[in-house]
């Protein structure tokens, strides 16, 4: 029971930063909050609604996302899209993620020797 709790906290820590990366990648194609949530979940990034919605606004304030209201459908929806600035930050983040993966792989292989 304690082990479950520990596992949960560590997984949470591990996943925390990836929500931003995943959102920036996903929003290369514009989308609104709920649809993005569905897409991320569908791709194996389960994220809480109460984390994602405020996060989108924060990323927008930081200039990493741009937004546009779409009022053509039944209810008005705010569509977010990764900005140029967001794109360049995303590349840095993806590079770093790849570097982490590489380091981890070399560490694992080194340990097996």
């Amino acid at each position, binding site marked *: 029971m304690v082990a479950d709790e520990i596992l949960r906290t560590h997984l949470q820590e591990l996943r925390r930063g990836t929500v931003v990366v995943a959102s920036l990648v996903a929003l290369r194609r514009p989308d609104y*909050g*709920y649809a993005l949530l569905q897409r991320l979940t569908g791709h194996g990034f389960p994220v809480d*609604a*109460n984390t994602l919605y*405020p996060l989108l*606004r*924060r990323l927008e304030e930081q200039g990493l996302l741009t937004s546009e209201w779409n009022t053509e459908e039944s*209810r008005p*929806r705010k569509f977010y899209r990764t900005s140029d600035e967001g794109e360049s930050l995303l590349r840095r983040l993806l590079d770093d993620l790849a570097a982490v993966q590489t380091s981890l792989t070399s560490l694992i292989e080194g340990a097996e020797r």
Partner: protein
Amino acid sequence: MSSLTDRYLAATLRTVPAARRAEIETELRGSIEDMIDGRRADGRDADTAEREVLTELGNPAQLAARYADRRLQLIGPTYYLAWERLMKLLLSFVPATVGIIVGLLEATDGKNPGGAVGAGVATAMEVAVQIAFWVTLVFAVLERTNTSLNLPAWSVDQLPEVQANRQITLVDVTAAIGWLVLVIAYLPIQHFHSFVPAGGDDNLPILDPALWSFWLPFLIAVLVATIGLEIAKYRAGRWTWPLVAVNAVLDLAFAVPVVWLMSTDRLLNPDFVDRFEWLGREENLNTVATIVVAGTVLVVVWDIVDSAIKAYRNRH
């Protein structure tokens, strides 16, 4: 009756900055409706879906804090250690010092010597609560406003000399020396200004002025030597047998004269005793003497045993 969603939105938006409220409301309402639609597509009825969605979004105050990027803590890691240190430092001596001073003033005021201890303790507690409140408030405000304290960064030079097994901490020694200085200062002060109404402009010392010929200077010398012992104790970092011996000698050098003078009715100023009808009665004076003697003996025995136990624990 407004719907649960309306109530949820109102509760969330109340603490979101007004400038962004309308936009967040439209967006959040849309998101909630999208989520409800999603659940209804899975076959839930409207009410259940709404309840589930709002439950999933959680406490509105927390959601609002996330929107506003607000901290959900009174004092965070940036300030906690500084808060803790300041709190310990102030609480270690301020309440006790103020309590003692108030108690002494009350005792020498002459109107209510019996209530002096109570007044001192009550004041000390009040001061402690006030310190805790105001220090915490200031740090909570710093946390909210994100003010930089410009505290010097920690460096290895701050490491205490003897990290392991330090029995005697700086706080303890500072407090002890503070006490000793207060007592030393009090002995002459009570002679010139005891706050006891003596009639006219004269002052009525509490302790017998005849003692100034030898015993009071002797007691002051013992107290000064005790300050030296406190410093030696701190430098050693722990109780050693020589320190225990010196401590015992100094304790006895102070306690034996006090006990002897008190039991032979030579400690208190006879004029002071006469001044109070209650104290002037033989049996009451004896009670006070017994309490002083018993208290002194208890403190001395406890102090000597305590130092010996600590020294014994340090054996290798």
